């Protein structure tokens, strides 16, 4: 289905020259959001503020002033980004009523270039999940089959892009939360190198793996957005230097000839659905005939990555969610007789099931007597995994595999089996643990359901990865 949106650079160019008004783009986005409300992709719009900003941009254009590289381009932010103009709840009950006093650094960067946030997208509460079923608001429906999940946790953002509500959306990826919904819903999802995009003003989940990235219709748009949001930020001490060459892709891309891509052996075996496997193999065949050199690569510790992740992530979650105590904002327990009861009640009733589950697992693996056996062992196996990736990247330029073992599952199918739900992250968590960039590209469909192809590159090779992804996208379309 053709999109109603041009590429983000063309949209901005048309606003800059006065050919299109920012107000028209914002109204177009808001109308599409209203028309497709039944998918539950959007929690709330920021329409008043969006209209004000659009009018201001149009007024600047009329006066002949310079407007930014994303002038008038509407976008949707996952609801764990602090933005003005609406509540920020991370789809949780405990943050109900929270109005951000400041905005995320990444939102500030986009706004400085004239982009306009029009809405907040649904997610699994606090980004804990792979389907949006853990949202305390509602479950988002897959755009291709409303009985199925859109993936998660950035399921609202992915569905919104596929439903054409805005030209791009922002997501966060802690264990696959951009790439897996991009695969399930059928858009491009980019997880940058750890540290490349500031997380200031984004609700923290697992700080050693959380990254921010765009969900878009095309690789070119993802690269264009990355070029604007990637930077050091004094408000996030984990940010790294951006590539001096930037990330936007020019017209003159190099050929696939001479590019060496490793298929990850561990991802292509047992547990991978035959339909997904066939689509990945077909993509590989196309890359081969376009001149890429394809080899098989083994990373023997990959089968351990999910276990490593489900120790480290809950450990960090239990720490990061400590701040939600009912005293300074959000859901509270007014009838408590003392402070302790106030904490217990506010947290016990404010957090959803999955948040409580992760807080308790985290508390367990970090507790005295268990720390060495669980947390320290997981952090050490993580080192082994990093070394195996480093070794692999000595031989190949990129790694390739599926994003998830299956296509989108049915709503309710895994809802009562948390471990089964965790298994949906089995092919995405490694990139987070290692810190490498990774992308999910639409590679084909099994019936009505999209399948994503995952490409990974060494840390900080984001520009090279986006370039390869664009070449691959052209082969797959």
């Amino acid at each position: 289905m053709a999109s109603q949106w041009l590429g983000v650079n063309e949209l901005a160019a048309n606003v800059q020259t006065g050919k299109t008004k920012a107000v028209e783009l914002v109204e177009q986005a808001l109308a599409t959001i209203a028309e497709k409300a039944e998918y539950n992709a959007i929690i709330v719009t920021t329409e008043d503020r969006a209209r004000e900003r659009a009018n201001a941009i149009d007024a600047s254009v009329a006066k002949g002033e310079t407007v930014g590289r994303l002038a008038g381009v509407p976008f949707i932010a996952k609801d764990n980004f602090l933005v003005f103009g609406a509540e920020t709840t991370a789809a949780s009950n405990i943050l109900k009523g929270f109005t951000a006093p400041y905005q995320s650094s990444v939102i500030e960067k986009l706004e400085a270039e004239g982009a306009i946030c029009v809405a907040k997208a649904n997610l699994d509460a606090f980004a804990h999940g792979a389907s949006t079923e853990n949202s305390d608001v509602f479950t988002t429906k897959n755009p291709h089959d409303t009985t199925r999940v859109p993936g998660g946790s950035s399921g609202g953002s992915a569905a919104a892009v596929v439903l054409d509500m805005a030209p791009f959306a922002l997501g966060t990826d802690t264990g696959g939360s951009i790439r897996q919904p991009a695969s399930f819903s059928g858009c491009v999802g980019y997880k940058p190198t750890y540290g490349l995009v500031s997380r200031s003003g984004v609700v923290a989940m697992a700080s050693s793996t959380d990254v921010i990235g765009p969900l878009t219709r095309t690789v070119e748009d993802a690269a264009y957005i990355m070029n604007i949001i990637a930077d050091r930020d004094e408000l996030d001490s984990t940010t790294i230097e951006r590539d001096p060459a930037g990330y936007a892709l020019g017209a003159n891309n190099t050929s696939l000839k001479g590019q060496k891509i490793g298929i990850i052996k561990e991802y292509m075996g047992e547990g991978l659905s035959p339909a997904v496997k066939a689509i990945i193999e077909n993509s590989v065949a196309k890359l081969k005939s376009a001149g890429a050199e394809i080899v098989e690569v083994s990373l023997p510790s990959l089968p351990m990555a999910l276990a490593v992740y489900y120790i480290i992530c809950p450990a960090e979650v239990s720490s990061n969610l400590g701040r939600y105590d009912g005293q300074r904002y959000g859901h509270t327990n007014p009838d408590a007789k003392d402070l302790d009861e106030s904490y217990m009640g506010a947290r016990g009733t404010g957090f959803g099931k999955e948040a409580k589950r992760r807080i308790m697992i985290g508390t367990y693996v970090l507790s005295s007597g268990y720390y060495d056996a669980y947390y320290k062992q997981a952090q050490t196996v993580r080192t082994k995994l990093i070394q195996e990736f480093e070794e692999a990247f000595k031989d190949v330029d990129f790694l390739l595999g599926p994003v998830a073992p299956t296509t989108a599952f049915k709503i309710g199918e895994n809802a009562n089996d948390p471990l089964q739900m965790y298994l949906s992250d089995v092919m995405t968590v490694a990139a987070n643990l290692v810190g490498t960039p990774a992308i999910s590209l639409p590679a084909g469909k099994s019936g009505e359901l999209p399948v994503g192809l995952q490409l990974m590159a060494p840390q900080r090779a984001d520009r090279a990865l986006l370039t390869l992804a664009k070449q691959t996208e052209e082969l797959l379309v």
Partner: protein
Amino acid sequence: MALVQLKATMSKLTQDDILKLARLARLQLTDDEVDEYASELSEILQYVEQLSAVDVTGLKPTNQVTGLTNVTRADEIKSYGYDPKELRKNLPAVENDQIKVKRMIG
């Protein structure tokens, strides 16, 4: 080796264990939740315990992946222009422009 291995090993959390964890994490749970978490958390811990079999001799734990060390800034007061009134809007209970909490000492 299969990418996903499920095997029953040692950990089995009791209802008492769950109550203790919930207490440490300041989470009030219902009786149903205690039962449910006892079985779910046991299953999850059994899954992650496969890591105990991995030989990590000579390896150090990884705490962060950027390689950055000692990220510092000048020790200067910076104003971000936030209005304290705006910041206080989110407070559940305020008295004399201060956060009001419940009694701490019995």
